[in-house]
């Protein structure tokens, strides 16, 4: 296993790990903000994986000038820019709705938000 290999795949592993931890948190945490935090973690992980999907070791950032010709893929980075901003927008809304929902149900515990069922 070369250093390059480790470098490359450790990125993916970190991203995947964050996604899975985030999903686990989403499934198991009770506090509504904890769930939002878990989503943020998973989001970060997904963003890492996305950037990684266009990443090549031994290349330069995608800013072309006279000295640089071999760069990494710019597209996933562009996607991740979008994804990060979307993530914060969703988080902002989630937090607001979560705060108000917890005020309505008198607790931030998601198990108490089961008025709608069946």
């Amino acid at each position: 296993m070369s250093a390059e290999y480790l470098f490359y795949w450790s990125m993916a592993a970190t991203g995947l790990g964050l996604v899975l931890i985030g999903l686990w948190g989403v499934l198991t945490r009770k506090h509504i903000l904890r769930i939002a935090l878990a989503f943020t973690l998973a989001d970060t992980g997904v963003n890492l994986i996305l950037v990684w999907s266009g990443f090549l070791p031994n290349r330069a950032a995608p800013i072309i000038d006279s000295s640089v010709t071999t760069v990494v893929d710019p597209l996933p980075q562009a996607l991740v820019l979008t994804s990060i901003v979307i993530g914060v927008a969703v988080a902002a809304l989630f937090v607001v709705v979560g705060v108000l929902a917890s005020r309505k149900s008198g607790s931030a515990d998601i198990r108490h938000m089961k008025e709608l069922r069946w």
Partner: protein
Amino acid sequence: MNMSLFAAASIGTGIMMIVAAVAALIVKKLISAIIIVGFVSLSASLLFLLMDAPDVAITEASIGAAISTVIFLWGRGKIGGEQ
């Protein structure tokens, strides 16, 4: 060699992030959790830099780490207290 340094950095950061992520979910205090998640975001922006994505790194640092954290802190203040 340069590459092994990169590998060490990325693996180290990665392990740190994963540990932090788990900690964020199981730590008692919500405020610690929020700060830890902010820290994970900041580390992620380091990884973005390592992956030759400076644009993403800047954005993650300013939006993911800073602004998200502020938002969560606000939410914590409004919900009040821990679970």
